């Protein structure tokens, strides 16, 4: 792990994105429509990818970037599955 101001800034950035995710939970709770919730979940997923990338840089563990790539793909899959379900009831994939 790298020490010093750079690492602190990266962690602070990750913390900021986590805070945004917590705020987004409010949007998922309130809705009001299902589309709002799907997009909020999509933004949470994108935040997660960014947080992992920041952590990979802060901890100096580039292997985490592979995990971030997989999350980006899964996030897309999740949004597509839920969106398709809301548009045509009964169809998922």
């Amino acid at each position, binding site marked *: 792990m790298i020490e010093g101001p750079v690492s602190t800034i990266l962690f602070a950035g990750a913390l900021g994105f986590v805070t945004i995710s917590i705020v987004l*939970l409010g949007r998922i*709770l309130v809705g009001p429509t299902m589309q709002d919730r799907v997009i909020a979940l999509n933004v949470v997923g994108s935040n997660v990818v960014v947080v992992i990338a920041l*952590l990979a840089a802060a901890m100096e563990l580039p292997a985490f970037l592979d995990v971030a790539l997989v*999350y980006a793909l899964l996030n897309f899959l*999740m949004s597509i599955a*839920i969106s398709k379900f809301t548009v045509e009831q009964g169809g998922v994939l």
Partner: protein
Amino acid sequence: MITLLEAGLLVFIVLSALMTAILRDVLAAIIVFGAYSLGMAVLWIVLRAPDVGLTEAAVGAGIMTVLLLVSIARTTRLTGIELRPVEINWGVAALCGLFVLAILATVPALPDMGQTVGNPVFGEIYNHYVTMAYEQTHVENVVTAILVAYRGFDTLGEATVVFTAGVAVLTVLRREVDA
């Protein structure tokens, strides 16, 4: 700073878990459960277990979301009841709270993260596995050697349980389609 980050993640996870229980609309509950799974996966990354994080994301966010969506597609989803607040059974909630406190009381007894002295994980068995696993099983990955060789019967039992559950689910779904 990393402690603050963990605290933020834990707040996110606990809030999304509570929302999964409280939301009335099942589709909204599935969505917020996906968010829970993503938060959990990041926590695994922070704790330096990226393989567990990958599994959590693939199973929790990927497969579970699709599985739950398929299950409400095959059954029915009640709508129009979202606005009615959920009735919380406070007795059960208090019991769950007590259980959480009992579990939390055992946390200080756990060895510190990365501590090797006095940690039961790094005892005689650990040394035996690390030094003898290849010689005894000729499997290069120690984790795989433990799972399929040393604990072979255990893994066979698990596989049997998963297979039986899969057959049961397929049987029920097939019956639903035929009916």
